[in-house]
């Protein structure tokens, strides 16, 4: 038996597999296919302060081994989320990694405050700070593209939450220097990093000769972006190993479809793995990947999952 338990900056989880934000709704839908409490953590769809309708349609374009989406952070708002979705996740015993978003740093902080004050906060294993969603109005000014903006959001969120609840900054790979952004987030109080969010992409309908998506551009996800995620995790983990960054856990996400894919991210330096777009193909993918990863480690004679985190780096 391989020990699959992990400690993510104080969040102790029975295993490292998670859903990815925006790819699993808020739990009930996937609970028809597997017990969401079997995951290390359930990552919720990013929640903002008020209700949001999201964008018009089409919101999706299939691409080779992936898809583009322009959902636009549709959601019920934090108050309805904590009363309904978070309470339900707690009721079935799931550990939640709650993804939060905001149009400015004050909105992020207010969402974090209302989450903290909610009656189901005890089920929250951590908070993921989505500073990298490409489907927002100020997409040219995504927080995670600027160290100053990233730092401002992270420090305000950190100030609203108890120290024992870790926060993870979710980063975009669409930046010139990922290590600089990671550094700004960790110095501002992030306990860990989630890498990577979708890449900004676009598709054109050649029948109409117009952009295919209602939102014109969208986020590219799926196995097509896995090499980007592996690279990003590798770069940031390398910076930690060489002392350029404080050592902090990385949650890997991007194109994981199998246990093999998950192990690639882990070997690059991820201490946990999220399964996103592959869930659209196979609703059981997060727990299937967990089983496959466990088997793969057993086959390799590994006794503890944590032994392979960052294993691809020179020792």
């Amino acid at each position, binding site marked *: 038996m391989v020990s699959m338990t992990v400690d993510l900056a104080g969040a102790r989880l029975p295993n490292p597999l998670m859903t990815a934000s925006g790819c699993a709704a808020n739990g009930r*839908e996937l609970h028809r296919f597997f017990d969401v409490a079997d995951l290390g953590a359930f990552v919720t769809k990013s929640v903002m302060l008020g209700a949001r309708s*999201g964008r018009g349609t089409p919101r999706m374009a299939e691409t*080779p081994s992936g898809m583009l*989406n322009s959902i636009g952070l549709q959601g019920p708002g934090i108050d309805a989320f904590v009363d309904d979705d978070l309470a339900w996740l707690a009721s079935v015993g799931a550990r939640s990694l709650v993804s939060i978003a905001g149009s400015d740093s004050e909105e992020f902080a207010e969402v974090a405050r209302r989450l903290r004050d909610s009656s189901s906060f005890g089920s929250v294993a951590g908070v993921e700070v989505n500073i990298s969603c490409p489907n927002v109005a100020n997409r040219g000014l995504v927080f995670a593209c600027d160290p100053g903006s990233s730092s401002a959001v992270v420090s305000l969120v950190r100030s609203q939450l108890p120290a024992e609840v870790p926060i993870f900054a979710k980063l975009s790979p669409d930046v010139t220097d990922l290590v600089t952004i990671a550094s700004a987030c960790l110095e501002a109080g992030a306990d860990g990093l989630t890498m990577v969010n979708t890449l900004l992409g676009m598709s054109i309908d050649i029948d109409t000769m117009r952009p295919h998506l209602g939102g014109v551009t969208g986020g590219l996800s799926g196995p097509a972006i896995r090499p980007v995620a592996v690279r990003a995790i590798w770069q940031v983990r390398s910076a930690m190993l060489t002392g350029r960054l404080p050592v902090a856990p990385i949650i890997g996400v991007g194109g994981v479809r199998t246990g093999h894919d998950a192990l690639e991210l882990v070997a690059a330096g991820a201490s946990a793995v999220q399964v996103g*777009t592959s*869930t659209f193909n196979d609703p059981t993918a997060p727990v299937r990947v967990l089983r496959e990863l466990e088997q793969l480690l057993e086959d390799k004679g590994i006794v503890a999952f944590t032994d392979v985190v960052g294993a691809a780096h020179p020792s």
Partner: protein
Amino acid sequence: MTSRPGSGVATVRAELVASRVVGAYQHLTLLAPEVADLARPGQFVALAVGGPTSATLLRRCFSIHRVTPDAREGGSGSGTVELVVADAGPGSRWLTQVPVQGEVDLIGPLGKPFPLPTEAVGCVLVGGGYGSAPLFWLAELLRERGCGVEIVLGAASRDRLFGAPQTSDDERASHGVTVTTDDGSQGVKGWVSDVLPEVMARADAQVVYACGPMAMLRSVSELAAAHGAVAQVAVEEAMACGVGVCMTCVMPVRSSDGTTKMVRSCVEGPTFRGDRVRWDAFVDGHAVVPADAVGAPVAAGGGGH
């Protein structure tokens, strides 16, 4: 793949037991007793395409044409699910080319079925193209309840009709079916909306069921309202997952409290009451977010999208 007991949905590797060309479409019969036992008209299934390592990740969703429940065969595991597939792109083309005895990964039944009237009332069923697929099964259930049923089938041309009489013998046997084609290659030349008022009057319709393109569903909903009938429409929205997690298949629908929300057609539909759908928000078959929708974008500076 599995699903949890009592979840109302099954995930199966279904064997394709028959596949035949019907006009412009492929009619597939899949062995899926778990799905057949649960399904009702108006529901759909989500199929994976291209095999387990396919680069085409997103599921293809098709309404269920009919089922033969396992129970009718004494629980022998022979329940089947029938689908009508149009070759509209690489994914559906792959489905049309699966060989008999091949396997297809299938999740279903999904979505809400057509609500059935509690009393024996007149019903008109309207199908556009292969959108007519679920209507014949629905017609059987309605007739079993004592409802009068008239069917209207429309398409651009004869080959794109599904379920229409093909021979003069069929025509004589198919009392209650009215056909329209845009090019006049079969039935009345024109649209279903051209014949619907007369059919509704003849059937004394209280409920009009429809499945097909958005523009047709809008027109059916408006004509039904003018006749004083309730329209129940099944939409054909693009879905990436079919199970309610991707948020791509939304459309603006008015709730009973009067507020408009962008709701998922896969879990809150695909059947909706026609007068609840915000048809005014559709342009070329795509939905914009109505300004009065809950959480709609607001002007710059207000935290819009």
